[in-house]
């Protein structure tokens, strides 16, 4: 994506979300051929090559229609998803996706918009029968709290709080209502003082982000990042499905604080129920005057729309995500400029993870001091962790930041039969028992070189096929690399080739190449993935696997 292309679309009066129209077209007619591309490009006022580039980028826009989308996120992969996918693809049109966010009940798959749990021992015929039988989505995950106060998970696991009346009865929008009576600066100051750090993985100060955007000339945008891409974490899905009003309220508070009139909730397409729930909640909120013009009669105007993702992991990175909304390939852009200076459509944009936003009404309602009383000095507040099916007690656990990992593992039913836990997805860490005493907070983990990521924790049992996991990760990297920079684009494929070939010298070649990719890549995807891969290689070597 280039500034020139963005300017061209703006000057030509292109639709604001060009790829949504393509998505609708594909849903009805399948992937576009050259003639359809030309016609779509004319209608969308996009250069035809740019549209072709985008369509070829997003799996959802060019994949042939499939009856089933089998999850092969890390948790499902460890639970045998690859074999299941092979079996199913002999029975019906089938594609694989990275993580439908049901890691607590792996393996899982999507039949249209419905989630089907395969059950660890089920054969493909059985799974297909189940998928075609219809029925309700699986029940929500178990939600528990080790923190003295529930902040993130306060409306989870209680049933029905996605509905506006129930949510309001539970206090939703009361922080917004009070905030609108005061100046925006009060909200901004509270969030700055709270010391909240982004929950998406990078841990950047939320308040500093907001302050920077508020200081840049408008119009400004708020984007809620619900593209929970890290296989192994699913708290964002559950938040969007069970507490959409917490997210909407957080986004509205952010918009009020920074002076934005429009916002977008970006939800990955692998979460169809989250998309539907968010859309319904936004409609309800708008109808109740909680979104739209002059919210609650305050004169403050802000509205939200849902932008469904189209099948790309890199979209979780904020500049890539903004590009996707604008109609481009989801490629990370070199920074500066940062999105708070030049984001969506080149305007100042706050991109916050949905969990980050859910914290905000609590901070505004209870004050920054109450927030800072939780967690650590440098990492205040709580964090919701996702525990996968490999634990005795999978589900979501909210903990105070600074809680030792070992306490979480103990709460999850113990980890004696694990060789390691995988934290933070493919850009995270392979955490060995020697590091399980690490406190879960940015400063302590950085010291140990451990990444919390988005808080997904996947159990790695003693009998896990570590070589299969290695190939799984490298395949993921090769398939999801955006292709912009040489080390990641070509290095990811080379890594996979070397790992597949194996043999003497493979380890040394992999190490050298992992270092080149990590040192040389443009964005965190290429820079970070080599780290857990290297840790996994160590583990494999130690175990002689």
């Amino acid at each position, binding site marked *: 994506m280039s500034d020139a292309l963005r300017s061209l679309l703006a000057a030509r009066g292109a639709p604001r979300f060009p790829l949504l129209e393509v998505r609708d077209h594909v849903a009805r007619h399948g992937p576009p051929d050259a003639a359809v591309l030309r016609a779509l490009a004319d209608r969308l006022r996009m*250069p035809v090559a740019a549209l072709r580039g985008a369509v070829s980028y997003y799996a959802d826009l060019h994949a042939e229609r499939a009856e089933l989308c089998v999850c092969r996120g890390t948790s499902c992969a460890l639970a045998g998803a690859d074999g299941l996918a092979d079996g199913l693809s002999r029975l019906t049109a089938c594609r694989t996706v990275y993580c439908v966010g049901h890691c607590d009940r792996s393996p899982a798959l999507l039949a249209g918009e419905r989630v089907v749990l395969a059950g660890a021992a089920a054969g493909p015929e059985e799974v297909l029968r189940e998928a075609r039988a219809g029925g309700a989505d699986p029940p929500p995950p178990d939600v528990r709290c080790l923190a003295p106060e529930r902040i993130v998970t306060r409306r989870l696991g209680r049933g029905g709080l996605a509905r506006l009346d129930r949510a309001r009865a539970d206090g939703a929008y009361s922080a917004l209502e009070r905030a609108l009576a005061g100046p925006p600066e009060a909200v901004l100051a509270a969030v700055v003082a709270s010391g909240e750090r982004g929950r998406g993985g990078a841990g950047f100060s939320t308040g500093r982000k907001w302050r920077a955007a508020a200081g840049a000339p408008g119009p400004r945008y708020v984007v809620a990042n619900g593209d929970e891409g890290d296989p192994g974490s699913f708290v964002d899905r559950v938040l969007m499905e069970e507490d959409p009003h917490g997210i909407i309220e957080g986004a509205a508070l952010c918009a009020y604080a920074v002076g934005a009139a429009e916002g977008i909730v970006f939800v990955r397409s692998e979460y169809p129920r989250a998309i539907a729930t968010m859309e319904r909640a936004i409609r309800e909120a708008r109808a109740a005057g909680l979104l739209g013009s002059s919210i609650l009669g305050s004169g403050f105007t802000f509205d939200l729309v849902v932008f469904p993702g189209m099948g790309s992991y890199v979209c979780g990175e904020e500049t890539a995500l903004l590009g996707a909304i604008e109609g481009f390939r989801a490629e990370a852009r070199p920074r500066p400029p940062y999105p708070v200076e030049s984001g969506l459509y080149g305007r100042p944009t706050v991109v916050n993870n949905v969990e980050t936003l859910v914290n905000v009404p609590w901070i505004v309602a209870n004050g920054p001091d109450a927030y800072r009383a939780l967690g650590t000095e440098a990492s205040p507040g709580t964090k919701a962790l996702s525990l996968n099916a490999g634990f005795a007690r999978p589900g979501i656990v909210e903990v105070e930041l600074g809680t030792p990992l070992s306490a979480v593992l103990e709460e999850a039913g113990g980890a004696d039969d694990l060789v390691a836990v995988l934290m933070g997805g493919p850009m995270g860490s392979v955490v060995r028992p020697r590091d399980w005493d690490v406190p879960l907070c940015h400063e302590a983990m950085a010291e140990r070189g451990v990444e919390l990521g988005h808080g997904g924790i996947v159990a790695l049992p003693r009998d896990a096929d570590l070589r299969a996991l290695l190939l799984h990760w490298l395949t993921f990297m*090769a398939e999801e690399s955006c292709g912009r920079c*040489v080390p990641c684009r070509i290095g990811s494929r080379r890594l996979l080739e070397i790992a597949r070939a194996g043999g003497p010298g493979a380890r040394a070649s992999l190490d050298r190449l992992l270092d*080149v990719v990590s*040192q040389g890549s*443009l964005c965190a995807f290429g820079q970070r993935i080599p780290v857990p891969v290297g840790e996994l290689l160590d583990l494999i070597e130690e175990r002689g696997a």
Partner: protein
Amino acid sequence: MRPNATIDGCAAVADGRSIIEAARDVGIEIPHLCWHPGLPAEGGCRLCLVEVEGAARPVAACHTPLRAGMVVRTSTRALEELRREILALEQGTHPASAFRPDARGSEYERLLEALAPPPPPAPGPARAALDASHPYLRLDPDLCIMCRRCLRACEEVQGSFVYAVAGRGADVRLVAGPTDRFADGDCVACGACVDVCPTGAISDRDRRNGLPTAATTRTVCGYCGVGCQVDVHVADGRVARVEGAPDAAVNRGHLCQKGRYAHAWQSSPDRLTRPLLREGGAVREVTWDEAIAWAAGRLRELAAAHGPDALGVLTSARSTNEAAYLLQKLFRAVVGTNNVDCCARVCHSSTATALKLATGAAGATACYADIETARAIVVAGANPTEAHPVVGSRIERAVLRGTPLVVIDPRRTALAELAAVHLAVRPGANVALLNALAKLLVESGRVDRAYLAERTEGVGELTALLAALPYEAALRAAGVSDGDARRAADVIGGGPTLFVSGLGLSELTQGVASVLALANLALLTGSIGRPGAGMLPLRGQNNVQGNVDMGAAPDLAPGYQPIASEAVRARLAGVWGAPPPARPGLTLVEMVRAAESGAIRGLWIAGGDPAQYLPEQERVLRALESLDLLVVQEIFMTDTARRAHLVLPAAGPLEQGGTFTNAERRIQLVRPALAPPGEARPDWEIALLVARALGADWSYGGPAEVMDEIARAAPDLFGGVSHARLAGDGLHWPCPTPDHPGTPRLHVGGFARGRGALTAVEYAGDPEHDVPGFPYTLITGRVLEHHNVGTMTRRTPSVHLAPADVLEIHPDDAAREGLRPGDRVVVESRWGRAEVPAHPSPRMAPGILFLSFHFPESHANRVVGPHLDPISKCPSYKVTAVRLARPPA
């Protein structure tokens, strides 16, 4: 700024630019592939990684700004090893035959040589086959390294968006359209991508591979009036390739399809190479001596028999100032007639007349540099994207960087697509629209009162006219909505504005009135004489500006000096040895009509094909055929030349020296890049030979000496111009003294005529409006691939891109007429008919048709009628009532 950072120990200035740029300033070249000066950073190749003290990992020098206090190292062992490994990754994806390290090879091969990466474990597989589907560019996927320089150059330099990246991960590849066939894409073949490609993956098909370039000559492009400087590489006596001069102010290295690639005409086998004399129905080759003696004899005989005013001359807008000057001097001072004109008559004569009336000078008041600094731009009756592509790109870039644009054009042109407001005016109704806009400005007070009071006159008359103007009726006549008009007025009323105009304002019965009405807007907004604003009419041919500057007009001597003035004639007599006649002569169209009536008996036509470009084509042919003498200087046997008694083979552009003057009044030096074929001679020499044969004692050592005389003949405009001063970017006239720097903007301190004149011009419907039985309105014009009557471009591979004239028609109209793409259709007016293929196009408005006139066989100008602007005598090419019919089976 003081140095505040270090790069490899050298003090460097952190001023917000990238490390790679700052390093170049201190003489350190950091290896790179995707980065290219002037293009946005890509950050893809990762070869420019450098170490910054305190940073966790190497950073890319191309997209990391040098900050105060940074300590940068660009060539540690670790970095060099990292670069080698990264380059090895890239190298391993190409087939073994793709590249080899070579210090004299492509940029990529030079880098292989310099960095010496370890050999890849195995060569990459062969990719898709070489794509040679396009006549000018070819794409070799085996050589593509996905650096995306081409993509960025296409967007940033040309303003097209031809390229994109498809796929992801290791499967990414460059695509240039909806299919894998390059020619199916939207490439306009400007060649900007070729210039930046580091591997040769995208290359010119016209490079004559293997032949060493014998000579390279810096000169000026011979197509449109933009005046791009080119470097012409010649090998084996032919043009090997043409490149934009990177340091030229006009085009900064950029060119268009015609200028860069359409040069095969030069070596076309049907070039005229010997004088041809037609006597008694037979044509024979003659020597130059015989040809010149014969021509001089005939001129003398006819002048003696019918008087000198029975003779006339058309100078060539394609040839040099020096040639035009000598030819008009020949007819004025030697033959003794003011029947001197050129094809400017049939294009911008209305513009020149109107600008002279409004400002006192007939040239553009602004210059191209104003495009980048303009507050707002209006493009009226012009489609520079196709007809003046390099200027079109400059305008597009300005718009993409945020300059608001109003486009006034019946067609939805590429610029109209980008415009803040597109006013799709009915052809021929400009005055109604422009007056309505003026009324909105005046009545809302969005005019520059101080400027109007201090610098203009006629405000009262104009205000009175506008007060009485029925606004709604005017907009109805113009076919423009109130909302659009008001949004346009909001843009224009914001302050000084740059008004770019074209033949859509000029080639009308209300041509002069249209340009006057546009000038009113420029004056009301205080735009003329201000930087980033003013009037910038785009001239159609390379030297049409220069021809009129040189006196190729029946009432004007060189430098726009009125022939009727005794003082002017006295000055010219002093320079020429004989004065021109006092009485102004006939215009081009008048001369042709006088030929029909027998008043004109002999015509001399240099480089031009009025048989094809004039309206009422059949009448024109009869007139030409009735002449007692028709002499044509030409490079090819045109329809006009076919009717000549004597055809003199002339040197073409690229083959003769002198000067061209572009649309911004910039006089630039033209140098011959190669010799003309056979016995063809430069135009200026031909005039000289004829004058001598007629007994004149002319003596010039070359075009430079002719220019020295021009400086004496028209000192106010050209007194300071000499070839010696024109090296580099030339001079904008007026340039009255040898130490004068030239004048990029006119009327800065005051108008040439004293005060700028607002003019109360009333709208009058066009005679071709609402003609019963002729429901469509036809516009004629040019397309990107061809130049004017196509004499040159039809003899190049451009014909593969645009093989015929086509009739553009709105898809709904096409459907109603039962026309599918390519169906042949007869376009018929009250004056004549043409048969062409139909091309349904959404850029046409319903009821409006567009027809190009590049191919003689389509006879587009048979359809255009006899109407002229009453003042400028410019024909009305832009409005003709027509109907459509199916061709006879």
